[in-house]
């Protein structure tokens, strides 16, 4: 993982170094903050404070080209000064004209209720979603939120308004955990309903069979969405470091059986890695960035990775694809 990177905002004008270790807020301390908004602000402000100072041109500041006016063009963008000089109508064009619409898809299925660090994966994912929302709002991007388990729960359209962030955070706070994860259905629904092209960030543990996931992700991509999959995992789900033999109960199905962790660890990891590899292959195949977050990793890392991913995709003129082995990002 790169210790520093040049990351581009929507205008590709932000240059930032990776925040120093001392400035990081570790996930455990962060999760002790009760307010989701405070958590998001803490991560984002801390993150920004750690960035290298760099010129930030902001919205519509970057000139791209002139184009001759044709009837039907918005007269607001006429360059009157040029008209005065040349007596011809030119339309001033900028690098990006529209704000980014970012859709946060938050999985709140039961399996997300698992956590061994005093907080659950759902808590972590909420915080991550709130952080992204806060960050993107700061960047004047529109954000939308869809929570789901096997059906869609909360659904807020992508908007940019200061009050909308509060609505999003409120919705994140009040969202309740659902039942089983049925990721394919919600994804399909989103692909069908969200017509505005934008960035789709999927926050889920993806501990489901992957049949159907590929099709739906492909459908999203086909609609022109940029897709980032943030896979939220508990460290124990990765390393399966349990000591005691116990009756393990599946949070989603309620199924229960006896497992000796020492005996089962190797087989678990093998299957887990196989699943992760398959997931990576799916994402790679569709040019989707897969970021795996363990709940003990600081959220600013997540933000950093997010921005890196965005930068790559912007730089390449298409959504970045980034191989990810399924382990920590």
């Amino acid at each position, binding site marked *: 993982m790169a210790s520093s990177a040049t990351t581009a905002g929507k205008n590709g004008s932000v240059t930032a170094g990776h925040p120093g270790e001392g400035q990081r807020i570790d996930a455990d301390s962060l999760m002790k903050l009760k307010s989701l908004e405070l958590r998001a602000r803490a991560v984002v402000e801390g993150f920004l404070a750690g960035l290298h100072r760099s010129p930030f041109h902001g919205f519509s500041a970057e000139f791209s080209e002139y184009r001759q006016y044709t009837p039907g063009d918005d007269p607001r963008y006429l360059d009157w000064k040029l008209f005065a000089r040349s007596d011809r109508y030119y339309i001033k064009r900028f690098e990006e004209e529209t704000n980014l619409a970012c859709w946060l898809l938050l999985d709140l299925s039961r399996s997300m209720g698992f956590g061994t660090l005093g907080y659950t994966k759902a808590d972590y994912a909420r915080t991550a979603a709130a952080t992204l929302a806060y960050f993107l709002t700061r960047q004047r991007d529109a954000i939308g939120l869809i929570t789901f388990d096997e059906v869609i729960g909360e659904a807020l359209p992508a908007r940019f308004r200061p009050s909308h962030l509060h609505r999003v955070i409120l919705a994140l706070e009040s969202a309740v955990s659902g039942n089983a994860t049925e990721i394919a259905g919600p994804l399909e629904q989103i692909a069908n309903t969200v017509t505005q092209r934008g960035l789709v960030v999927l926050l889920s543990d993806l501990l489901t*069979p992957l049949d159907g996931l590929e099709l739906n992700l492909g459908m999203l991509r086909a609609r022109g969405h940029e897709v980032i999959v943030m896979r939220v995992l508990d460290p124990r789900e990765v390393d399966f470091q349990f000591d*005691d033999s116990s009756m393990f109960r599946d*949070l989603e199905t309620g199924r229960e059986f*006896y497992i000796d962790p020492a005996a*089962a660890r190797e087989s*678990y990891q093998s299957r887990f890695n196989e699943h992760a590899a398959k997931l990576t292959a799916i994402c790679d195949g569709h040019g989707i960035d897969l970021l795996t977050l363990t709940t003990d990793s600081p959220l600013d890392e997540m933000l950093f990775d997010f921005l890196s991913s965005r930068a790559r995709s912007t730089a390449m003129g298409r959504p970045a694809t980034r191989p990810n082995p399924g382990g920590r990002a």
Partner: protein
Amino acid sequence: MNLLFGLFAVSAAAVVFPFVFHLIRRTPKNHQEFSSLMFLEATPPRLTRKSRLDDILLLLLRGLVLLALALAFSRPFFRTDGLLDLDDVRGRQIVIALDTSASMRTESVWESALAEVDKVLDTLEPADDVALTTFDDDLTSLVPLGRTDGEELAAKVSLVRKQLADVEPGWFATKLDTALMGSVEMFGEVEDAVASARQVIVVSDMQDGATRDGLQSYEWPEQTFVEFRKVGGDAFTSATLLRVMPEQDEAETEATKVRVLNAASSDRDRFTVRWGGATSDAEESVDFVVAPGSSRVLELPKQASAHDRLLLSGDDIAFDNAHFVTSPPPVQVAIHYIGSDAVDDPEGLLFYLQRAFQPREDRIVEITTAVERLAGNRPNLLVVSAELTDAAASVVRDQIAQGGRAVFVLTSDKMVNSVAELIGGSVVASEGSGAEGPQDRILGEIDFSDRLFAPFADPRFNDFTDIRFWNAANVEIDEQESTQIVARFDDGGPAIWRRAIGDGELLVFGSGWDPSSSQLALSNKFVPLLETILKDAMPAPLRTKGYIVGERVDLTDTVQGNEVSITRPDGEVVKLGAGNQVFAATDLPGIYNVSDGTATTSFAVNVAPDESRLEPIGIELLEQFGVAVGVQSTQAEELEAQRSLKDRELEQQQKIWKWLLLVALALLAAEMGLSGYRVRSIARASSSPSTASRTTSSRQGVPA
């Protein structure tokens, strides 16, 4: 070692529980929630060698505690001497009392009874003794108790079976009390009766008509049990026919009355009665309805000469459906009256005497007064109310001495002399007789135990105070042993007294019954009193209403001549010799014809009416009379009981269970100590992180 309650020893199997719990304990109690088990497979529980070694002592202790407890509850003991065997145990003495009364003739009942006896015989044990008796109105011992030395039970049983083959139900009534008492007496007839268990098995239809009153005064012996094996059903349609004897004033009616009783358990109520004969039955019949549990009186046409029985049809029970009827000729009774009054003189005695003896169906009384008829003709009763001439006195004395009966009514003092002469002194008219004029007297002292007044002994009838006497003779009697004063006047003078003379008897009335002497003739006591006197004097007639089976029929007064032959209903002729004119062989219902060579008469014998009461008798009623109802244990059961008793005694003496409980407590204490030590060592081990995993596995190994 032996166990008193071996079944508790099964609980020793609980020793496997600690081991099972140990295995179960391997499945941890703690639960771990996990996001998804899609990458996991269940780990099969395994018992590691290490954990077994860790807890083997604890398991052993717990197993031993359970074993000790199981053993303690099983009450172990050590048998000090050998087991009892069959020879040490008493056998049974079984008296089978088989009912052979008429009611056992009911369809299929007899077969059931024989099968029941067979069952008893089949279940006998070699040490048992068996006797067979049959009973109806008496007990008949067919095979007595007691076995000769070396006699096998099989021989006895075959003897019983052989006797049983000849037994058939008779026509007699059931006397259950006689049967039970007689059966019990049989135990006393064998010497070794004490050692054996006494059992009476009554095989009977247990009908309600069986007598049981005799048991009331009987002290039932201890340890003698009766088992009642009832045969036959409880529900059947049974109707009973009884002839209703006409009242005296109905003697001339044409119809014959019968009463039909329908049993409460009957399910039918329509019956038919008709006259029947030996050869043919009457065409005419009477159909009628009698509700179950009630009775009805019917009128049938008068008996035709060819008919001798009433036949009932419509019920299930056949044996009591024929009721035999005879009409014996009335008995001629002769009374000779010696007195001065005329028959139509209402102030005299004869007037009332004649009216007192009205003709009846079974008796015709002829009263003569002519003296000449007295000679050579002995009347049944002599009534004398006048002083006798010497000649007459001599005749009277002779007749009384030869067994005649005479009633003297003392109408005058002279008659007292006549009586005195007749009996040879000891009676004199007392002083002042007649001088004080008429005295108003009543009967002051009456001997109700005397046969003359016995019918009046009931308090309802014993009031004679409203009968007054005015002209009673004052008599003084030298009270010899042979003079019996039956009643005295209230002043102590004898009112009625009797004196035996030769074979006959003299009854003396101190006062006449004519209205001028007393109110006796006008009293309602008069006719019964004279009837009593006449009954005493007249020959006993054959009963019109017939006899019941088994009853003895006295023919003494019926027949004359020495040789009497009786033809039974089955045609058999029985001859009674001189001096024996009581016929006892009435064991069949039907008409018995009696012939003494000169005249022929007949009497009817019927089944006892009680025999038709077929409702089952309540066993609890018999128990109230003290009958010990129960079944003696068989030899094998007794052996088992005695062994068990002996074992219990041994166990009580040894009390090993107490020691076992102590051992269990000690083991429990050791187990607690050891497990406490284990827990503490686990606690110590868990405080050390390096040994955490080892401690965990150790703890899992400790069963709950």
